[in-house]
């Protein structure tokens, strides 16, 4: 248990001293998670809404596909995005391999099924009379979408928090697509993996705590949002 305690002390030290490497990893993490979450929320919420709201043949199967995609292993996503972005791949020209943007693409793919599945579930659990009521008040389909989303805001927030947790903690994509390059694409999780591999367990624990502190900050802001809404 020794390294847990020293890890805790180390976490405080890293944050208070303003350790440059740690902060580089923190900023990389924030940038990449911010990017991937924005993209996946923007795409995932409308898709999840449609999946939960519409009734169409094959809906059940589509739902199952989404559920299955919840089990996309990160290394697998990492490999696929790597294949796309590598110099030999179709998008090699764009030079996105070993960049934060590249990681964000992979993470967005990771977060998307979570957002879609949880949004669909939140929309489905809305009162059936909401849709009728909005139609009677003259709402267009687009307006029904916006209002339903707002009515389901607690469920969506949970979706966002869950997906953020997933994105913040993933290693496979960041490693594979980002390359864990110090000062450039090293995120907190890839740093943890590295330190652990080096046998620096205390530092690994410390960085884990740093990530939790970051997540706590994110959730604190979201919770203030929740209080307002």
């Amino acid at each position, binding site marked *: 248990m020794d390294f847990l305690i020293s890890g805790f002390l180390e976490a405080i030290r890293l944050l208070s001293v303003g350790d440059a490497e740690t902060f580089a990893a923190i900023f990389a993490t924030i940038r990449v998670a911010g990017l991937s979450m924005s993209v996946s929320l923007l795409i995932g919420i409308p898709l999840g809404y449609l999946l939960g709201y519409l009734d169409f043949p094959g809906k059940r199967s589509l739902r199952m596909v989404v559920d299955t995609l919840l089990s996309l292993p990160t290394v697998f996503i990492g490999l696929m995005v790597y294949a796309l972005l590598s110099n030999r791949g179709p998008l090699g020209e764009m030079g996105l391999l070993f960049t934060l943007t590249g990681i964000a693409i992979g993470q967005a793919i990771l977060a998307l099924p979570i957002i879609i599945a949880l949004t669909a579930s939140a929309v489905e659990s809305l*009162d059936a*009379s*909401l849709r*009728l*009521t909005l*139609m*009677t*008040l*003259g*709402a*267009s*389909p687009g*307006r029904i979408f916006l*209002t339903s989303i707002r*009515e389901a805001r607690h469920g969506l927030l949970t979706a966002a928090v869950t997906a953020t947790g997933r994105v913040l903690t993933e290693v496979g994509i960041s490693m594979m697509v980002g390359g864990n390059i110090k000062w450039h694409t090293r995120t907190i999780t890839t740093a943890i993996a590295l330190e652990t591999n080096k046998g620096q367990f205390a530092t690994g624990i410390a960085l884990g705590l740093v990530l939790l502190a970051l997540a706590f900050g994110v959730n604190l802001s979201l919770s203030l949002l929740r209080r307002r809404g």
Partner: protein
Amino acid sequence: MKEILRLKQVRHSYNGRTVLTMPELRIMSGTITGLAGPNGSGKSTLLKIMALTERCSSGTVYFNGSAVAPFDKQVRHRLTLLPQAPYLLKRTVSDNISYGLKIRNRTEDITAAVHGALELVGLDASFSNRLWFELSGGEARRVALAARLALKPACLLLDEPTAGVDMESARSIRRAVLLARRDWGTTLVIASHHQFWLNDICEELIYLYNGRRLRGSFENILLGPWERTGEGLVRAQLADGQYVYAAPPQGRENAAVIDTGGFAPARPQKEPAARTIRELRGTVTGIFQDRLQDAPRIHVICGDHLFVVAASDQFLRDRELRPGQQVTLAYDPAAVSWLPA
């Protein structure tokens, strides 16, 4: 008078069970139409189809002469429905009432519009800051109605606007409905189980039964079970042991109706009644003016069944009539009609 809504060959089914069959229905602009009928007779379904919130299984809905479908832009901002179980958005009362106005970009002086609408349903302006769950059942219903009135729609469909609403407020709602018609030319269709309230306000009454429109009066429905008698009639027993007789149905119909005008005061016993005429004994519980027919009606309880009797000349000549009194009603079993199964 222009026709604002028209249904043609409309049928609707849920999972293959047909619950509405409406070959033709016309609503004229500026009229108030009542919609009555027992639970499950299709009132809400009809209103939802007229409000274009549900697509009928087959048939066409016309609005101002043109065939329309759900989300039709032409209609969306001119017609509104108060559903039977309205939903309040998880916001304040004021947000709920102004929602439709904001959609229509009518954002000038929202506060005044909200307060005005609240007043129409008899609620204080202080309600506008309450949250959606801080309301009693009747208050919530009235807020939902206020949200529709605020829109000043060309066509307003109300599904049981007074259910769970107190008497004073039911009168406020009546005033609001009449005002909407007078000031905004609103056309109204109102489903309600409050027979008095509905008759008092509407100019035409559509009576639904098993998804079909019935013509004639319908206050006195008898549900059976029916048994055959020796005389080639069927009869149903009332709670006090009396029987109601009717000529047997043609098919498998189960519900019979006696027209309010089908009763007469029984002849004095010395005069023998025509062989076919049957009698019912009961207690008068009230004498009312029916506003829709502009004629008096007598309520008579036989067993625990209430019969509504048109106060014909003969009845009115019998000035002794007052509540609590015993009367004997005469009717002709052959005149009892059967409702479609």
